């Protein structure tokens, strides 16, 4: 798993790897080792690596999903699925670029939101002043054990045009939008208030992947904001646990020592807790990043990409192209491009968040 935080052990870095002739006893031991890991390795190979290789093969085919992809009935089309996804101007590339834009905003706001919220929750339930901590731990963790389908349906009702959210907003004089039908990006809405309704020439004319910069910079749509709120709420409980574990690893003596030295509560938090929590934070960001890019079920239940494709995500395109249009090759290609995006972004994120040594 990319998610586990590893550190180079000093020994591993200083001792050069040397190949020595293996003695008979060692050989026996090595075989025993393989025997013991064999069940896990077999399961991994059969249910993880083999399907990945199969999917990679499918992404090179024009396969309708109605025969075996290995029987030779499906035509081999090389990289043309990837080409129509990334290079050729058309509906598929347009949809895919929109979905990447949507998901970029989704990831940005969701990861930020979930890290902040779950950290705050963890601090709260870890604090000594809070009464009934175990009760609150359970309450905050509750969304995580509820099915995402149930949560999605609940949010659908909350965010209806005449739903609870808008009723509450109306109490303070705000005329709430029809959340799941409003396709406008929030940045565009804000710019509209400032009098900028149409795209400035440079932004409208410059296109990246067939989508104008103006459209790239739309911000998440109102509907997407509701989705983001849903995910932040639903996943914060799980990540709270990660943070809680990290917080409980911090020795109380350190806090006390800092307090005796005269550090204020903020200083203790800023210079002690945050620094010691670095590994937890990096871990949570990594996990949240990966799961955000794969967002599917909420979209599938709540919006199916509507309104105006502003909640379209790569995972949903992969599904619709495969099962809706019978283009499983395209669907697999989308999945692999998504895989590549996740790998690259996770590496970048881990590089940024790496532990630097003085």
């Amino acid at each position, binding site marked *: 798993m990319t998610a586990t935080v590893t550190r180079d052990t000093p020994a591993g870095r200083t001792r050069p790897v040397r190949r020595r002739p293996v003695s008979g006893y060692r050989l026996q031991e090595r075989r025993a080792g393989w*025997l013991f890991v064999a069940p896990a390795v077999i399961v991994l190979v059969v249910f993880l690596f083999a399907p990945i290789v199969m999917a990679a093969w499918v992404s090179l085919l024009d396969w309708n999903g*109605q025969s*075996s992809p290995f029987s030779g009935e499906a035509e081999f089309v090389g990289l043309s699925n990837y080409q129509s996804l990334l290079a050729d101007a*058309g*509906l598929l590339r347009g949809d895919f670029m929109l979905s990447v834009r949507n998901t970029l905003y989704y990831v940005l706001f969701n990861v930020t939101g979930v890290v902040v919220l779950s950290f705050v929750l963890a601090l709260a339930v870890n604090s000594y002043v809070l009464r009934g901590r175990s009760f609150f731990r359970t309450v905050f963790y509750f969304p995580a054990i509820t099915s995402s389908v149930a949560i999605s349906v609940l949010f659908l009702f909350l965010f209806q045009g005449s739903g609870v959210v808008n009723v509450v907003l109306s109490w303070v004089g705000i005329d709430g939008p029809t959340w799941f039908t409003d396709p406008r990006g929030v940045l565009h809405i804000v710019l509209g208030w400032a009098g900028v309704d149409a795209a400035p020439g440079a932004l409208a004319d410059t296109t990246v992947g067939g989508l104008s910069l103006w459209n790239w910079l739309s911000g998440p749509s109102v509907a997407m904001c509701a989705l983001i709120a849903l995910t932040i709420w639903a996943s914060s409980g799980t990540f709270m646990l990660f943070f809680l574990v990290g917080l409980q690893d911090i020795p109380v003596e350190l806090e006390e020592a800092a307090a005796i030295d005269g550090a204020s509560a903020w200083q203790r938090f800023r210079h002690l807790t945050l620094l010691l929590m670095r590994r937890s934070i990096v871990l949570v960001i990594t996990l949240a990043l990966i799961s955000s890019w794969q967002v599917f079920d909420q979209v599938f239940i709540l919006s199916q*990409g509507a309104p*105006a494709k502003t909640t379209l995500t790569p995972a949903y395109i992969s599904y619709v192209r495969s099962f809706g*249009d019978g283009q499983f090759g395209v669907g697999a290609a989308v999945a692999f491009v998504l895989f590549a995006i996740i790998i690259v972004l996770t590496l970048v994120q881990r590089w940024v968040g790496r532990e630097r040594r003085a």
Partner: protein
Amino acid sequence: MRHFPRTPLAVATAVATATLLAACGSGFDDSDDGGSGEPSEASGGDTGEPASLTVMIGSSGEAETVAVQEATARWADETGNEVEVIPAQDLVQQLQQGFAGGNPPDLFYVSPDRFRMFAEGGSLYPYGDQIEDAEDIYQSLRDAFTYEDELYCAPKDGGVHALVIDTEAWAAAGLTEADYPQDWDQLASVAQTLTADGRVGLAFTGDYNPVGSFMLAGGGFFVNDDQTEVTADTPENLATLEYLEQNMDAGSFAFAPNIDAAWGGEALGSGKSAMTIEGAWIVGALQNDFPDRQWTAVPMPAGPGGQASTAFTNCWGIAADSENQAAAVDLVNFLIAPEEQQAFAEAFGPIPSRAGLADWNAETFPEKAAFAEGMETARSQVAVPGFESVLADFNTQLEGMAAGTVTPEQALQALQTNGEAVLTQE
């Protein structure tokens, strides 16, 4: 522990690997013998051996599931075969898994928009020539399941769009039965009359189905008759979209989502609109969710191209890989026989696919008569594989049209371009 006994180790590993491989690879091996479209030798109906059939349905609910179970049980009792009915959670996905794995259910629902994908893929066993009294089934429904001049499967029900009217709002606006709109001008004018504070005259789901019915009445459609060319960007379609746009701008037409209703039925039921356009499925939904709403359904008003609508249907598909094709055909003939279709209509409300039952339907269920009228001239949904994404994009264009960000010309041009891209790949 110096010496590991090697032979048991090797055997254990081999067994474990083989078991795992067999578990996930079983489907791929048997698919080679299928796909030929020939009835298998071992068919239960021929040899007299009892066959065991699996029937997979995309059920609308408990009533439908029970009705199908009871009907298939009657057939099983008569013929001595066995039938298992599986209500699918996601029919298309589960069918695809069956096809890809080479072990699909014997009998299953097929919708027109998926039909051609399955037919082209060689997954369906064409049994059109074995359907009893096939001529009695509406031509438009048979057309929906005809591929390369061959009827593949028997339509199990049918229906068209109708104009559903809130009769209380209708009477309150001073309108009578004589005012039921016959053409688009009248439709626009009654919609205007019915529009009031918090209520639009006509609201319908803003997707390609009702808009497609309008296009048909306007003399156009998405594709030509044999679905080989995209005919989106035509003057007829443009006039249709402009008609809709004008009335939406006037505030008397609306897409249901824009007035905070999920679909046309909810718009009408909740009183947010006085009229809507839906198929026969609205009957049950209104009875369940809005039992107090008084309504009636009349045929779609005629446009410049005459009276027309999209036809909605499903057929009983038989898998090309099925080992019990003869028995399955026998079961289908049993299920689409007039008596059984009547039983289905009474149990959960589908409109029979047989023209011979039209009068019976109109007498027994007068409220549903409009959903069966004009079935002869209706057009089936677009069946071109890959058109789902194209039409989904058209839905987005329609949303834009309702919001005023997309012109009708742009919407049709996008549809034309995207549709042509799919058809040239065919």
